[in-house]
């Protein structure tokens, strides 16, 4: 099998991740944060180590690292938690439904106003001027997809962060396709809340995710409302959730087995280095591009920037059919709109979407060669 669906979830996982999850299931591993006996302490140590490693990777304090079940959950917590009645939420035309839907639900309930700023094909000057024109100082939440899940476009997160800081706006970043690929620092980039899955570029298990708060966002955490309330292991007599991180956004038992795997995943990413990971993805992208560019029936989308995502269509063959034909030969890709109808509309593939090949660190040039052969055969049919 050739696994080319790493933007959905990376596979295979590093061996250390598998071993860490296995150990957490076989060794005494109690409920972290709910007791101080040896088994609970063992799990709590693992969970804290995860916060520490993530904090180091994203320039934050371990206390400001919240464990979630996914990027979607984190983005819902962040967007709905930060939104105030009558505020404006600005989001880009590259956003995934994990941003688009919670934002539009706030708009449809009459709670907030919303507007979209353009990605303008990666023209940073136009992106920034569009954002400045729409931002409402002191009453805005800005959301940005650092790296698209549909193409290799990225948004100028540092520049957007500067504008948010100057205008007193909350800045939420979706790092679903950038965590583990690019260096992200919440303080240096003026990000209020960074949300990400654990199972993609961080190579952890599915069902894991992180929210990373900046120091200033953490200091005003009481102003972030909660979406889900429940046991937190502290302040049990209070009727509301604790006003401290991470407990405020961790109602119920955290996925400690997943945390064990994610800890190993982040450690692996750190050892490997994001530059090396990206170098491999770029190499694979360029190889596949070169091999398939001889066919005028194949369109590869984006601005030609290599990266982890290779979106394409074959003239006259629906993306779903291309996906089926590739699957017949053991090549796993994802087709359609990739939960990002907005990004596909921006890319000009809004109707049927596209075929998405997405690379991971363990993919090889031999695999891109085999995939290219198959894609060219389909194009010739």
């Amino acid at each position, binding site marked *: 099998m050739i696994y080319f669906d790493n933007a959905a979830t990376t596979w295979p996982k590093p061996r250390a991740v598998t071993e860490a999850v296995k150990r957490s299931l076989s060794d005494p591993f109690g409920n*972290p*944060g709910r*007791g*101080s006996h040896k088994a609970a*302490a063992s799990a*709590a*140590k693992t969970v*804290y180590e995860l*916060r*520490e490693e993530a904090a180091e990777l994203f320039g934050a304090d*371990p*206390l400001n690292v919240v464990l979630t079940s996914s990027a979607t959950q984190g983005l819902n917590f962040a967007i709905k938690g930060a939104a105030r009645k009558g505020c404006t939420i600005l989001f880009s035309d590259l956003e995934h439904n994990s941003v688009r839907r919670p934002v539009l639900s706030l708009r449809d309930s009459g709670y907030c106003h919303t507007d979209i700023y353009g990605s303008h094909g990666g023209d940073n000057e136009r992106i920034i001027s569009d954002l400045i024109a729409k931002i409402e100082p002191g009453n805005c939440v800005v959301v940005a997809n650092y790296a698209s899940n549909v193409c290799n476009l990225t948004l100028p997160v540092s520049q957007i962060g500067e504008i948010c800081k100057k205008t007193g706006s909350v800045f939420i970043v979706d790092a679903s396709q950038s965590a583990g690929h690019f260096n992200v620092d919440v303080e240096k980039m003026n990000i209020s809340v960074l949300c990400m899955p654990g199972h993609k570029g961080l190579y952890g298990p599915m069902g894991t995710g992180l929210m990373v708060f900046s120091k200033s966002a953490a200091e005003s955490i009481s102003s972030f409302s909660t979406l889900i309330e429940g046991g*937190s*292991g*502290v*302040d*049990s*007599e*209070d009727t509301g959730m*604790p006003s*401290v991180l*991470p*407990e405020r956004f961790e109602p119920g038992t955290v996925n400690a087995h997943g945390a064990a795997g994610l800890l190993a995943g982040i450690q692996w990413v750190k050892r490997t280095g994001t530059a090396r990971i990206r170098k491999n993805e770029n190499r694979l992208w360029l190889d596949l591009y070169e091999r398939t560019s001889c066919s005028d029936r194949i369109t590869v989308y984006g601005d030609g920037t290599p990266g982890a995502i290779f979106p394409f269509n074959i003239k006259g063959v629906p993306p779903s059919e291309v996906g089926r034909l590739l699957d017949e030969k053991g090549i796993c890709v994802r087709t359609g709109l990739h939960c990002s109808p907005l990004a596909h509309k921006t890319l000009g593939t809004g109707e049927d979407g596209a075929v998405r090949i997405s690379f991971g660190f363990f993919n090889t040039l031999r695999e891109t060669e085999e995939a290219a052969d198959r894609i060219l055969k389909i194009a010739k049919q």
Partner: protein
Amino acid sequence: MYGCILTFRSQTAAAKAARYLKKTGIPVRIVSVDPSVTAKGCGWGITVECESANGIKIKLDEKGIPYGEVLSGGI
């Protein structure tokens, strides 16, 4: 022999303090604190020798790690 408990707002905060103190050569244990002795029920702390509690508080202040009160006769 530990006679006191230094309390924290959460188990995560206690873990941060414990990790830091361990690095500076002071091993401590994270313990849950009885609800009857905390203001809001269910608290967390680290075990410390009573006579070194003030020194530990200074170290935590230097690192900016917030803590609560010192409970004596804990262990």
